[in-house]
C-alpha cells in the first residue's frame, strides 16, 4: 500500500511544479528536437514485454482449453474457448457474480466514505482555526506511520464484540471515520496550494464554513477527491487481509477471497477457470488505472489557480 502512496505524493507534487522534462539543448543553447533512439526504445520495449509477459500469458491462458495451458509458453490461445469464463463464473457453490457484487458494494462504499470523511477533516485542518488543531494534526500524521498490524487484533475484538463479524461493516465503517489518514494529508497538501483569498472572500460575503466548504472548496478539490476515489477503490478492491479476517460466509466473500477459495477447493486441476476469474478480477483495476491516469495528469494543472 505504501508504495502506491508514495507514487501518489510525488505525482501530485510534480505536476504542481509544472515540470515538462528537460529540454535538450545544443551547445549554443538552442533547443534540440528529441532524436529517435531505436536502440533505447528496443531495450525498453523488450524489457517491458518481459515484465508484462506473465500478464499477457495469463490473459491468453484464460482463453485456452485446459490441456494447452501447460504445454505452451505461447500466450496466444488456439483454439479459443470461453469455457473457462463460463465455468469460473459459476464457481464452486457461490458464483463469482456474488463476489463481484460484494466487492463492488464494499469498494463503492469505501470510496464514498473516504471522499466524505477525509475531505471534511482535510478542510478543517487546512482552513479552519480551532483549539487543538496543531495537536490533532500531529496525531493524524502520527497515525500515518502506525503499521496496521498493531491494530489488527484489537480492532477484530472490537468489531467482534459489536457483532459485526461476517458483515461488510468492519470493512466500510472505518472509511467513513477517516481512518486512512493519508487521504486527509493529501487533501491538506492540496488545499495549501489553493489561495486562501477564495474562502476568505466567501466568508466575508456571509458564507458559513459549511457553505464555503460545499460551494467553494469541494469543487476546487476535485482532483484531490478523484485521486482519493481512485486509490481507495484500487486498494479496497485488492485488499485480501481485512476480508479474510471478517468475512466467513462464502456468500459474503469479496473477489480476492473468492479467488483464494477457488485455489483451495479445486487445487491444481482448474487453472483455466481460475485464470479467467483472475483476469476478470484485474479488470476494474485496469479500468480505474487508465481512467485515473488521464485524470491525474490533467487534474492539478487544470485547476488553473496558480496562473
Amino acid at each position, binding site marked *: 500500500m505504501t*508504495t502506491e502512496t508514495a507514487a501518489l505524493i510525488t505525482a501530485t507534487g510534480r505536476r504542481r511544479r509544472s515540470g515538462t522534462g528537460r529540454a535538450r539543448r545544443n551547445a549554443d543553447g538552442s533547443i534540440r528536437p528529441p532524436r529517435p533512439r531505436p536502440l533505447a526504445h528496443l531495450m525498453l520495449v523488450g524489457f517491458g514485454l518481459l515484465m508484462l509477459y506473465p500478464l499477457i500469458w495469463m490473459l491468453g491462458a484464460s482463453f485456452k482449453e485446459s490441456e494447452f495451458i501447460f504445454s505452451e509458453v505461447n500466450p496466444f490461445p488456439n483454439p479459443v474457448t470461453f469455457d473457462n469464463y463460463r465455468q469460473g463464473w459459476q464457481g464452486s457453490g457461490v458464483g463469482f457474480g456474488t463476489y463481484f457484487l460484494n466487492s463492488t458494494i464494499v469498494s463503492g462504499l469505501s470510496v464514498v466514505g473516504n471522499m466524505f470523511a477525509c475531505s471534511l477533516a482535510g478542510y478543517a485542518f487546512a482552513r479552519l482555526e480551532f483549539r487543538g488543531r496543531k495537536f490533532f494534526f500531529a496525531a493524524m500524521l502520527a497515525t500515518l506511520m502506525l503499521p496496521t498490524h498493531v491494530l489488527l487484533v484489537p*480492532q477484530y475484538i472490537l468489531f467482534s464484540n459489536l457483532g459485526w463479524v461476517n458483515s461488510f461493516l468492519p470493512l466500510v465503517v472505518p472509511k467513513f471515520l477517516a481512518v486512512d489518514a493519508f487521504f486527509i494529508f493529501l487533501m491538506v497538501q492540496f488545499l495549501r496550494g489553493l489561495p486562501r483569498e477564495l474562502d476568505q472572500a466567501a466568508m466575508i460575503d456571509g458564507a458559513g464554513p459549511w457553505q464555503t466548504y460545499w460551494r467553494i472548496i469541494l469543487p476546487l478539490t476535485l482532483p484531490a477527491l478523484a485521486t482519493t476515489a481512485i486509490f481507495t477503490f484500487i486498494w479496497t478492491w485488492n485488499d485480501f487481509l481485512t476480508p479474510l479476517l471478517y468475512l466467513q460466509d462464502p456468500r459474503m466473500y469479496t473477489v480476492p477471497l473468492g479467488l483464494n477459495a477457488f485455489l483451495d477447493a479445486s487445487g491444481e486441476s482448474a487453472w483455466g477457470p481460475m485464470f479467467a476469474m483472475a483476469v476478470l478480477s484485474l479488470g476494474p483495476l485496469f479500468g480505474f488505472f487508465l481512467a485515473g491516469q488521464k485524470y491525474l495528469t490533467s487534474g492539478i494543472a487544470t485547476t488553473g489557480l496558480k496562473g
Partner: protein
Amino acid sequence: MKSNATTSERATSAGDGGARPGRGRVRASSRPAPARSVSLRRAVRRNKIAPYLFLLPWLIGFFVITLGPMLYSFYLSFTDFNLLGSAEWVGIDNYIELFTSDPKYLESVRVTLVYVFVSVPLQLAFALLLAVLLNRGLRGLAIYRSIYYLPSLIGASVAIAVLWRQMFGRNGLVNQVLDWFGIVGESWIGNPDTALGTLIILNVWTFGSPMVIFLAALRQVPEYLYEAAAVDGVSKWRAFWHITLPMLTPVVLFNLVLQLIGAFQAFTPAYVVSGGTGGPVNSTLFYTLYLYQKGFANFEMGYASAMAWVLFFFIAIVTAVNFWLSKYWVHYDD
C-alpha cells in the same frame, strides 16, 4: 504548540504572515461595530463549533478505531487471551517466549529479514536504472511509465499471487522456458530453498512505483549542472555518478524507507502462494503470516499483539537507523 494554546498565542501565530492555515481569520478582518446582533453572535459561536463538526468523523475514528485499539493492543500484549475467557495478565511472558522458546517465530523473523533486505535493494536498483533510461527525452514516456508502473498496482493482488503459483510450479511457465535449454526444473515454490526467491522476484517486479518517484525527482535536477559538466568535458558516466546520484539521494532515502516499511508488512503473496501455511518447511513464513496464524487461527490474541508490537519496533528501529545513516550519504541541496 499544544491543544491548550492560549488565545494570545494563537493570535501571534495567526499574525506571523506565514502560509499557515491560521493566517486569515475572517472574524478579525470582518468584525463589525461593537454592537453585535444576536444572529451574528450566534454565527460566531457556530463557527467555534463548526470546525469540530467537520472533524467529527475523524475524531471518532481516531479515538475509537485507532488510538483506543492501539492502547488495548499494548495491554493485550502482556496478557493471555483467547477471545472467549478474560484476558489474563502474564507480564512480559509473551515477549520472552517469542525470543527464547518459539523457533517458528525466529524462523519467521529470518525469512522476513531475508525477504526485505534482498528484494528492496534489488527493486530500487531496477527502479533507478529504468528511471534514468526513461529520463533521456524519449518519446512515449507516458506509455513506458504506465507499463512499468502497472505491476506495482496489481502486485499485491490475489490474482497475481495465483499467477505466481502457476509460474513457479512444477509444470509452470518458468520450467517450460527452462525446458528449451534442456533444464528439468522442480517446483520452485515446492522447494524450501527457492520458494522465498520466487516471492522476492515478485516484489522486485513491482519496482514501478519507486521508479515513478525517481522519474519525478530526475526532472528536478537543474539542467545547468549538466551544462556546466558538459562544458568541462565530463563523461556521461561521471555526470551520473557526481551529479545525478547525489541530487537523487534524498529520494533514494525516501524510497528506501517506504519500500522497507511496505516489505516488512507483506502478506498476501506469501499467504496465497503457500496456501496460508508459510510452507514448504516455513520457508515463506512471513512475519505477518505467522502473526495471522497465531491471532486468527490459534486465537492467541495476546501473543499476536506482542508480535505486532515487536514488528512495530523492528520497523521503527530500521527506519531510525536509516535516517541516522542518511547523514553520511544523503546530499541536501539547501
